[in-house]
């Protein structure tokens, strides 16, 4: 496997039926183990880019390779499979399934992916143990495992979501403003544990945020406008 995790060339994406916006990226590569901080103006297309990387959207033109896999040549169900096998996703808020316990939420990707399941069981005897260990590393001890996620604070919920994105050792974690619902103290605490885990497991991380102050935690920081060709962004 090559060192390049993300390889984008001459990519063009437009929302169907929407003239005003186009995302056009001539060239963008991310290497294995990199932790990328991605910022950009609201509405510039950050979330859209992450959806492309997660294989939920497909570009109209250009090359989009993730982990040496050409996402543009896959069917939508192959992309669903690919996503759960290789990518951990993390959003701003409401990452959890309200009717499942904390532990079940963490295990969820392993229910849909044999690969993630297999990887989780490499280092633990059961999925439950694996989930509990991750939760512990993110500061949620085993008393939380059986709780309903709705009884957690927002900060705790985000940590559960982080544990889930790490569960079963994905190759890439895509995080879309996961800290914006947290206060400053919680933000850096959360970032520290997330980055710590990614470091240890050698996971590549793409982290989107508005908050310039967080950039120093990362080994690479880019603005979406730098990536895009001149006619990108809101017209």
């Amino acid at each position: 496997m090559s060192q390049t995790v993300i390889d984008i060339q001459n990519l063009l994406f437009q929302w169907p039926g929407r003239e005003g916006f186009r995302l056009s990226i001539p060239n963008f590569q991310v290497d294995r183990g990199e932790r990328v901080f991605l910022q950009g103006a609201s509405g510039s297309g950050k979330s859209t880019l992450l959806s492309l990387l997660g294989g939920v959207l497909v570009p109209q033109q250009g090359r989009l390779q993730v982990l040496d896999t050409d996402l543009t040549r896959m069917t939508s169900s192959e992309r669903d499979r690919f996503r759960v096998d290789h990518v951990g996703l993390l959003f701003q808020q409401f990452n959890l399934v309200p009717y499942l316990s904390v532990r079940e939420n963490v295990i969820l990707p392993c229910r849909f992916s044999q690969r993630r399941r297999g990887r989780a069981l490499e280092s633990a005897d059961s999925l439950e143990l694996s989930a509990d260990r991750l939760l512990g590393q993110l500061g949620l001890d085993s008393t939380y495992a059986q709780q309903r996620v709705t009884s957690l604070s927002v900060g705790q919920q985000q940590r559960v979501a982080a544990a889930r994105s790490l569960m079963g050792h994905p190759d890439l974690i895509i995080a879309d403003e996961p800290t914006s619902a947290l206060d400053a103290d919680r933000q850096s605490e959360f970032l520290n544990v997330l980055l710590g885990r990614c470091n240890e497991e050698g996971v590549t991380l793409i982290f989107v945020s508005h908050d310039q102050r967080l950039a120093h935690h990362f080994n690479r920081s880019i603005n979406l406008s730098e990536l895009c060709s001149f006619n990108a962004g809101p017209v």
Partner: protein
Amino acid sequence: MRPLLFLAFASAWNRRTTLGLMAISIGLSVMLLLGVEQLRTQARESFSQSISGTDLVVGARTSPIQLMLYAVFRLGDATHNIRWSSYQTISQHPSVSWSVPISLGDSHRGFAVIGTTTDYFEYFRYADRRLLAFSSGKPFVDIFDAVVGADVAQQLGYQLGDSIILNHGAGGMGLSDHADKPFRVSGILKRTGLSVDRSVHISLEAIEAIHLDWQGGAPMPGLSIPAEYVRKFDLAPKEITAIFIGLKSRAGVFQMQRYINQYKTEPLLAVLPGVALDELWSVVSIVEKSLLAISALVVGVGLSGLVAVVLAGLGERRRELAVLRSVGAGPGVVFMLLAIEGLMVVVAGSLIGLSGLMVLSMFATPILETHLGISLATWTLSAESWKLLLIVMATGFLVSLIPGYRAYRISLADGLTPRL
């Protein structure tokens, strides 16, 4: 498939109050539907079992349905009678194998009194050509002997040898009793599920005897003939109400029917019981079919309620669907999730309806038997009911596809970021 079922259960459990109420309302509608269907099959069955092995039923000229109603079901009254002489002529016709005359009009505490001959117990058949059987005692021998049906004995607590008093007409008012001529219970019949259970059988001579001192439906003033003396009178019957006829060969039935219908001395009517029962049932079945249609509508209302509830819940579940997609659930899985949820409610509802019906029938059976004479002894679901239940479930599954499809569209449009 495993995560799908697990998620569907967890999600349904999370919203168990709403879905539970939904299941109950579907259950009630299913109960209504199956209940009506069961009633209708049972009614139809006891209906078609009411007479068998009789080739012709004969009465004074009237409509075939009316003749069946009073002669077989003991409902309503005959407007005219048959002369005894006509009966004798017909019964001696060469193609007649047996004939049983009956005479109606009196009652005993709400139960019909029927005057007949002991041939009644030998030839009258019902269901699969079954004969009437005695649970105790024997046919009437003496003039004041009476054979009572199972319901009469049970409800009035009669034993062999008990003395009973008949009323004139539909009775119950106690105004015109035949109190001067009490009868003695000589036999009790086994239960048949038919009008026989609700009848008191006496001899034709007894009918004559209790009316010796009557004229035009009222006791003759100043004339009273004590029971001890009635045997001195001529008790040969003068009129009867109807005749059950069995032929030597079924082939001659239409010829015999024509012979009776064209009988010269008085206007008579002969009907083939099978044909008349069908005709009668087709009248009843309008009611029965509308009942079934109404309950089918109620099930429809229940199912659309289900769709409405699941659809209404979808709005607040957009986030959840997006989360599921982010952990690898395809839109197809989301579709199935919602469809399974609907199906689970329908299946639960059907089970509720089914068990509700079983419980209800345990209580309702005795009530229905006494008040409507419908025997619901066997509460095994008919094939027709199973079919209905399957149709309900299949329809339930089909309508569950609606929220499933909606969720599918939503999760395609939303991708990973739910739009509000």
